[in-house]
């Protein structure tokens, strides 16, 4: 004690400072932890909101009807979700049909062929393509692609149709497929390529028979992620594919996607608590579950290729 008396000012200053620092450490750690836990609350929030309204919806409409009926006409009380799922899947299949080959070949080009200088320009261009607002893609599909199809190959195409919307949605997800595939292709060890060249394989043979198979699980992850984005895409299908549910319609016809239905309802004057209002949460739940399964599958595939090399 006596010693402390003697050096009073210095020791006390240090101690106060130290106590202050410890408190600040604890406060900051608490705040940062809270930020990270917010993501858990977000997920709970989504699940609770969707579950609450969906369960009210299922008090009035049987889940069996919702999942198996092919009639979707909310004003008449017909709530079979299949026509909306059909619209979503039609657009998604067309989109992936474009984005898988183009995105994968782009990834091969970027990783195996592109000169360094060009690569530094192409990758940002792709990122900018990914950053174009989806209303812009919707406008492009409606006012450029559909008239182009009508004047050339499909004279009987409807103003709103699945093929234009799907095609442009494919353009939107090319960057996703390309960038995730390229990460996987890039992660393939150089020694595998060198081995192939040493055996006399050409560049194409090395790329398609050695590198792509080695990166396959990453490429699968990229495609699943692309499918998930296509299923969740909203404005392109709302603007260019139409607002009329159409079970088993042709790609040249208009149809409604699940996301487009949600936007259609919130754009109208639907009173809260009505069955139509609750139906958007039921459709939202179905959408959420579909993308959740795809996202988890994609996460699993990405981890697999990370572990391999």
């Amino acid at each position, binding site marked *: 004690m006596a010693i402390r008396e003697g050096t009073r000012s210095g020791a006390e200053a240090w101690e106060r400072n130290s106590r202050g620092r410890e408190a600040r450490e604890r406060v900051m750690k608490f705040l940062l932890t809270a930020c990270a836990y917010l993501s858990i609350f977000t997920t709970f929030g989504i699940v609770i909101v969707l579950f609450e309204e969906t369960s009210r919806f299922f008090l009035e409409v049987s889940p069996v009807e919702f999942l198996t009926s092919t009639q979707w006409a909310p004003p008449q009380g017909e709530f079979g979700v299949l026509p909306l799922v059909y619209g979503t899947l039609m657009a998604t299949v067309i989109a992936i049909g474009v984005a898988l080959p183009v995105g994968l070949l782009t990834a091969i080009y970027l990783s195996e062929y592109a000169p360094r200088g060009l690569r*530094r320009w192409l990758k940002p261009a792709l990122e900018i393509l990914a950053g174009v607002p989806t209303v812009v893609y919707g406008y492009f599909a409606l006012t450029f692609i559909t008239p182009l199809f009508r004047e050339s190959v499909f004279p009987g195409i409807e103003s709103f149709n699945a093929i234009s919307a799907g095609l442009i949605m494919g353009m939107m997800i090319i960057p996703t497929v390309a960038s995730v595939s390229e990460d996987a292709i890039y992660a393939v060890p150089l020694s595998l390529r060198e081995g192939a060249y040493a055996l006399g394989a050409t*560049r194409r043979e090395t790329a398609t028979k050695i590198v792509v198979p080695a990166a396959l699980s990453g490429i699968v992850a990229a495609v699943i992620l692309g499918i998930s984005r296509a299923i969740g895409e909203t404005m392109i299908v709302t603007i260019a594919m139409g607002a009329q549910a159409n079970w088993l319609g042709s790609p040249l016809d208009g149809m409604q996607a699940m996301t487009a239905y949600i936007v259609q309802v919130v754009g109208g004057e639907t009173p809260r608590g009505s069955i139509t209002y609750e139906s958007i949460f039921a459709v939202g739940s179905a959408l959420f579950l579909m993308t959740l399964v795809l996202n988890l599958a994609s*996460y699993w595939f990405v981890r697999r290729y990370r572990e391999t090399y």
Partner: protein
Amino acid sequence: MTRGGKKAGRQESGGPEFKASMSTRYGLDKAFTALVTGAALVGVVVLALLLADVVRDGSTMLSPEFLTSFPSQVFPEKGGIYPALIGSLWLLGLTGLISVPLGLGAAVYLEEYAEDTRINRIIEINISNLAGVPSVIYGLLGLGIFVQLLAPVTGGGSVLTGALTLSLLILPVIIVATREALRAIPGSIREGGYALGATQWEVIWSHLLPRALPGALTGIILALSRAVGEAAPILVVGVSLYQTYVTAGPFDGYMALPTQIYDWISRPQQVFQDSAAAGIVVAMVVLLLANSFAIWLRNRYQQRS
């Protein structure tokens, strides 16, 4: 091994291809090079076509007055995007204020504090999953929580509600970008700080955050420009498609550029279609500038480190 019998029919795939003539193989090689090069150019060509298309369609409406006028149903050719532009600026500012500190905080926790426990692994998987949730679902979340449950705090369908919803949407993107930037900092920087007696937070604040900022900033700008371009979630949480006043506070109603464009697209008259194209030109100019800046920043940063 019965491979010998198959050889004849398998000239181009599988093992026996060394039998094919060299000129065939080199020919295929050239064709494939052309194919992948063409595929890589598809994106660039589409982007160019799209820009040319909207500039052509929008040129009749583009003028300085277009930026400073209200949209009009009576004189649509004199309409503009002023309230939508101001609304989008409000969304941008508020979303940035909300999402950037939260995103940086979560990233610092996960990268610097979190140990490899079960709960932290769950948080990690959860964030990567949230990044894949469709934006319209975030709209439904915002509708349930911010518009209805927290109406007394947020004022219902206010610009604050819109910004909160968009913040939750882009948080995963900001977290992932910041974590990558933090991970790229060598451990010796941290150790040097501790050796001088700094506490963990002091090291983070004075050493790590300044160094991680350029990398994180790229992710933040890309995320914010995505938020400003989103239409679906704010349509669900009650953006105005028409209002006669300009947003002046966080609890006011708001219009936004993407939803204004959507509203014009959904009207059949040509003048509205042209207005939509002009609005798209404005939005694209802003977003292209922001994204180019972000990418430039990253390239510069990557070159130095």
